[in-house]
């Protein structure tokens, strides 16, 4: 097991270097503006642009710039410099991480505690009205774009522009340490919106997995032994059904930590997603690079954790 984890970690590092290389290449290949010009602004003279290019190290060859970028990340956690914000990218990402973390973790808890029970009920009440209704609603939420869902939620339930003034609206987010109660209130609506789609996906996933598992021989044996149905489902059925769920959950959380762009934009939550979308709008490629690398780090770590979790959840899985 230990050698497997070490092997996975080494592959993860290699993968990360490849991601950094690709995002770095994109920097040069995309039809975007010279960063020195972005920094210098309109009407800047060529000598000023040249001086800025020297200061930012943009006068070196691509290989040297990549090496500087890579060693900057590895040894100094230096993700480069934002030409738009005039700030180091690492600091900007770190500054936005708490908001994204708050949004993602809260939403994940919500979609797990709502989605899984709906999936279980739907599976055990198969072909009943309850099953059809919950799967129908799930289909609606799976199909609904988050951006649209967010706007609808605000126009219906926000305390400023909503039809019914129930929850705090867009732009109300404050940090957890600033005001915990307001932090919680401001995230209720975003959590609901972000988890709605995921909740629907998880409910359908659990239903499908559970239906498949419930037809297995060992479930029939468990029932024949007289175990209560609750134990059969939760202890024997769900233990097997939860495998694919863990895979998806890990990756979903990791990718959202890389930035829930649409939800953060609609609800004006200053997280990594909004940092990304603003950077795209301003052609600030160092931020785009930084956030992509951070997202890749989250996904690689999540992948490794999921693989390890598998070994604990499924006795059949053994890593040599």
């Amino acid at each position, binding site marked *: 097991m230990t050698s497997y984890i070490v092997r996975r970690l080494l592959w993860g590092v290699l993968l990360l270097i490849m991601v950094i290389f690709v995002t770095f290449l994109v920097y040069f290949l995309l039809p975007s503006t010279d960063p020195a010009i972005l920094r210098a602004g309109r*009407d800047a003279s060529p000598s000023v642009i040249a001086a800025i290019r020297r200061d930012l190290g943009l006068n070196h060859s691509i290989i040297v710039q990549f090496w500087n970028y890579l060693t900057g990340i590895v040894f100094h956690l230096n993700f480069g410099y934002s030409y738009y914000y005039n700030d180091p990218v690492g600091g900007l990402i770190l500054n936005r991480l708490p908001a994204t973390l708050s949004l993602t973790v809260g939403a994940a808890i919500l979609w797990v505690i709502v989605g899984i029970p709906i999936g279980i009920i739907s599976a055990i009440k198969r072909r009943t009205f309850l099953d059809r209704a919950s799967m129908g609603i799930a289909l609606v939420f799976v199909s609904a774009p988050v951006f649209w869902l967010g706007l609808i939620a605000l126009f219906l339930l926000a305390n400023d*522009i909503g039809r019914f003034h129930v929850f705090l609206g867009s732009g109300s987010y404050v940090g957890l340490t600033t005001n915990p109660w307001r932090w919680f209130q401001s995230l209720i609506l975003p959590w609901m919106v972000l988890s709605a789609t995921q909740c629907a996906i998880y409910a359908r996933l659990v239903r499908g997995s559970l239906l498949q598992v419930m037809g297995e021989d060992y479930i029939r044996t468990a029932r024949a032994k007289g175990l209560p149905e609750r134990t059969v489902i939760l202890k024997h059925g769900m233990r097997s059904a939860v495998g694919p769920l863990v895979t998806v959950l890990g990756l979903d959380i990791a990718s959202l930590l890389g930035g829930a762009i649409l939800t953060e934009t609609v609800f*004006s939550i200053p997280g990594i997603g909004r940092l990304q979308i603003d950077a795209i709008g301003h052609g600030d490629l160092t931020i785009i690079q930084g956030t992509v690398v951070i997202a890749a780090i989250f996904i690689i770590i999540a992948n490794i954790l999921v693989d390890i979790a598998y070994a604990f959840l499924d006795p059949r899985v053994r890593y040599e």
Partner: protein
Amino acid sequence: MSTPIRRRAIVAVGAMLAIAAAWFAFAASQSTSTATGASLKPALTGAGENLYNGKKGGTLTVYDSEDFLHLDPGESYFVLDYEVMFATQMPLFEYKPNNSTTLSPMLASGPAVISNGGKTVTVHIKPNVHFSPPVNRAVTTADVAYAIERGANPNVANPYFAPYFGDIVGAAKATGGPISGIVTPNSTTIIFHLTAPTADLLVNALSLPLSMPVPKSYAAPLDAKKPTQYGTSQEVFTGPYMLKSDATGKFLGIGYNPGKNAILVRNPNWNPSTDWQPAYLNQININIGGSSEVIGQQVLKGSDSVQNDTPTNTNVELAYTSYYNQLVAVPGSGDHYVALNNAHGILKNVNVRRALYAALDRAEMVKVAGGTIVGQVATHFITPGAAGYAQSGGDAGPKVPWNEHPSGDLALAQSYMKAAGYPSGKYTGSQVIKLVGSNNGNGPEQSAILKNAFTALGFNVHVANVDQSAMYGKYCGVVAAEIDACPEVGWQRDFADPQSILYVPFYGPAIVPTNNSNWGQVNDPAINAAMVKAADTVGSAASAAAWAKVDDMLVQQAVAIPWIFDTQPNIESANVRGINALWNVGSWDYAFTSLK
């Protein structure tokens, strides 16, 4: 699946598709462009509005989906930055918000004195303006001199130093140190010695943030960093407001959180007797980020707030129909035009350019942009409100045939193609037109309209719509890219002098290989000579007439196709008495805005 079930499924799917198609048809028939019709109610314009008699006190919330670029007066060159800069700092001169043509002394104690045949400018400043904490002392002209000198420091890299301050003696070789042509004989007098008689231009440029005083002892250590940290992490202020700061003047993380918010509070060292701005509000909270769609609704339905960025068409329409008194359409002091490559390919031919000018449906381009609420069809380059506008034809513009048909005239266009050597009235050569537009907003639609004009004249066109910054930085502003046409380049005047509108985008010798703002590479010797003559013309009226002549020549040569004089729609809450600065794209002036 059995046959009856399959048939039922097909019928069901068919019915759903029919319903969807019917719904789309209905929705399409109901959708209308925002306020594009001729029956538009006259919008409030902001011109001539009463600036005073506001109620003192209160906190204004500003919703802004975009962040600032620079909060350092040496770097600031963006509408949103200007809103904060001009509320927190005092330049030597400034326009009042309802007047974009007459400069008023701000830090200066009176008008600038021009002498030596337009080669010397003397300015006296008020003696009792103080910096905010921790500097606290009175502002001197040495602070103004340093503010301008640091503009040449590569760590500050002021974007307009060369075109507007470049004629000061010694400025051409300046890198941030003292400039010999800036002299401060005492603490309230500053004298500028120029290499050319361009005093009028310099005086106008003294209304830009570069003339806002900066204390050297405080800023120099910050300016030594690459890039400067003055205005990024800390700063001192002279205006009625300041970014909320700690005792050291640090505002980063306190009064400004990038991408999150900014807080303007009263400057404790501001003396109302030194300033003509009333500064009614106690505090301005600027919320950065969010969806423009949501922000607009929050402002219209809420209180104490304004939307800083351009509202969406939906919200403009909502405001127009349901919150009319909360909608203001302000002349925007800018324009957009089609840049045509005057230096490369078929568009070097003046008659081909005239043909395209005549063929282009400029009215449709304005309609696509949002209609009359966002602008009017442009007929020349000097914008409404600037000196020389009336002399160069006013709204009608120069009277040339290709300028008289806003919706395009193909027959007329073909007559110019014939004059260009294409007897059929259509292009028969092999050049493929390279057209680069913006993929933001309605950019692709503008590109399509321009493409239609080209194809109507027989051209093959290759269209690439890219991000706006790439459009300028990688294509339209790069000479070697040899782009034939850019449909949506825009120019915002820096001040009411027409030189700030025409010089950079059309003066041949100002062309640079990259970051070029003369997008059409216009380098006509007669136009260049006329510009030099106009720049050296002393006296406002004579200067305006000289620049109007340049404007006329640009249209005569069809060097580019102006298509919209911008108007800025703004929305505010019902209890806000918003004042918009005509000179700054019609954006909010926090030092005049108040709550009802």
